[in-house]
């Protein structure tokens, strides 16, 4: 029963995320600026790439999909509606989403064209850019909740959402979440100038899987953001899962809309922004949260 529920939640979440992403991609279009990972791949035909590595190329989307599905397990979609409440919950999410980067790097290298190998380099640079500030965006919440478990973090926000206490951490999370999901200002690994990166060299089932994975990552980032900063499934009147979905999709729309307001950044600019601005901001956020905890703000601690 638990397994079936988990599988159904994973599937429904991924499907809803994919559908909503498709809608948003059409609403938030701005002329001249790239919209997001290219949707130009041909799903109906297969693509044979000369000189590709025939073992690593299909492994890429599968590894990425495994990362997304594994991470969805710890997301609490409602009271009791969580795949598994791991003691290391949010840390597990940070780690498991890295498999998406691994998958993109694998497929990019294995396709063995100039553009796809460029995409492989760019996604690794993106990983080096987002991992540390993303960690800081999580650390503030973890400090205040006193636990890594997603359910415990949701329980700690019963009275007050963390977005009110830590607005700086929330901004940090939105920016690093956009980096993590390769959306609007940070879409260099999928830029049109390199033919869409790994999407440009995929077709058929792998293109379908890439679309699924990229939408799933965006949904996952939004859902974890809702858990970390917006109180997860807490809310009046409506059932928990409805609140969770509303918050996730709201955060997703906010991220995509804010991302479209900024000129797309190159990989070097993104790295500079991340290491020169957001890591110091993250340290400042940790300091502020420490002061707030000492002042007695946040949930009552054991």
């Amino acid at each position, binding site marked *: 029963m638990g397994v079936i529920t988990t599988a159904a939640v994973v599937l429904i979440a991924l499907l809803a995320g994919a559908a909503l992403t498709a809608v948003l991609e059409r609403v938030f279009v701005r002329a001249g600026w790239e919209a997001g990972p290219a949707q130009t791949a041909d799903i109906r035909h297969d693509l044979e790439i*000369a000189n590709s590595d*025939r*073992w690593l190329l299909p492994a890429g989307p599968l590894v990425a999909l495994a990362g997304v599905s594994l991470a969805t397990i710890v997301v609490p979609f409602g009271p009791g509606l969580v795949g598994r409440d791991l003691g*290391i919950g949010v840390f597990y999410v940070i780690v*498991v989403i890295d498999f998406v980067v691994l998958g993109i790097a*694998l497929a990019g290298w294995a396709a063995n064209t100039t553009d796809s190998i460029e995409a492989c380099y760019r996604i690794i640079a993106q990983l080096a850019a987002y991992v540390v500030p993303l960690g800081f965006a999580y650390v503030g919440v973890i400090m205040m909740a006193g636990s890594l478990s997603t359910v415990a973090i949701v329980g700690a926000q019963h009275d007050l959402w963390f977005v009110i206490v830590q607005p700086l951490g929330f901004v940090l999370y939105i920016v690093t979440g956009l980096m993590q999901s390769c959306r609007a200002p940070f879409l260099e690994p999928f830029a049109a100038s390199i033919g869409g990166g790994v999407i440009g060299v995929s077709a058929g089932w792998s293109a379908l899987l890439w679309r699924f994975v990229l939408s799933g990552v965006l949904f996952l980032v939004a859902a974890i953001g809702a858990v970390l900063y917006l109180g997860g499934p807490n809310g009046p009147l409506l059932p928990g899962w409805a609140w969770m979905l509303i918050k996730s999709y709201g955060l997703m729309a906010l991220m995509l809309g804010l991302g479209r307001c900024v000129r797309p950044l190159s990989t070097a600019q993104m790295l500079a922004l991340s290491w020169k601005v957001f890591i110091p901001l993250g340290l400042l956020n940790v300091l502020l949260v420490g002061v707030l905890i000492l002042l007695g703000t946040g949930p009552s601690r054991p």
Partner: protein
Amino acid sequence: MTASFEIIAFSISAFVAVAGALGMATTMSMFRSGIFLMASFIGVAGLFILLAADLMGVLQIMMYIGGFLVMILFMIMVMHDPGGAMMAGMDMSLIERWFSKGLVPRAPPDGNDDGQMHHRGHKQANSARKQHAQENGRDPEKRGPGHHGGKGGSGMQAGGASHGGMDMGGMDMSMVTPVRPIAAWLAGAVGLLLVGMLVLRPNWRFVEALPDPDSARRVGHLLMEKYMIAFEGAGFLILIGIFGSVLLARPSSYPDESSRAARVAVDAGPEPIRDEGLRPLAEQSPASALRSDRRHSDEHGA
């Protein structure tokens, strides 16, 4: 149920760990080598998780995915043949051939005229075989072991008849070094020793206590209380290391003004990626490396 699940999980993790290590040592592609090592460590992480040390396991995955992707980038920068394209055509032992499956061999760039004539002949043979294989619905790269030695060796052998199973004409280009048998024996002996230690088990003490489900909290308290000096000291050392590398990488650290200006000029206008001159053996048009398989649409069009 639980016991059999544990055995299955252990077998999979152990197999991934051992096979990954074996693949790392025997594959011809350096990129694959890094990926195999990553897989091996992820298998070890699975073993950690089986031992209820989930924090250690997830930490291991995080370190090795992020760290190895960056390490692979550095390796690609300095290696002569990171994709194994030249090594893949050489005389390989059975296990090397297995772990290098799917790599497309290419001729080295300094092939003379004779080699190129050979090369063209191979091109035709290759495309003909590919066609044949496609008709049969088989993998076009699947070939007998006899064909293997002749294929990639054609470029570097001046005028030799390329028949299967030839030696490399005095050039020992294979990966078999004289040390390898000794290393294999040593590895076998160590493995035997470890298994023997397990079988002839000394009087290990068994404890009935269950592991702490929230091990992260325990580890965190240990790091921040008992071992704080060592932990912070290690962090400080790493910080000094980062400062040092940033200082060394700065353009201003160049000895004189002219070399600094040259470095800044390179940074401002990076040199475009040049074609390295490796000619693919597989048939393809130089304009586009991709060839879409549109047989369906062609059929409809006709």
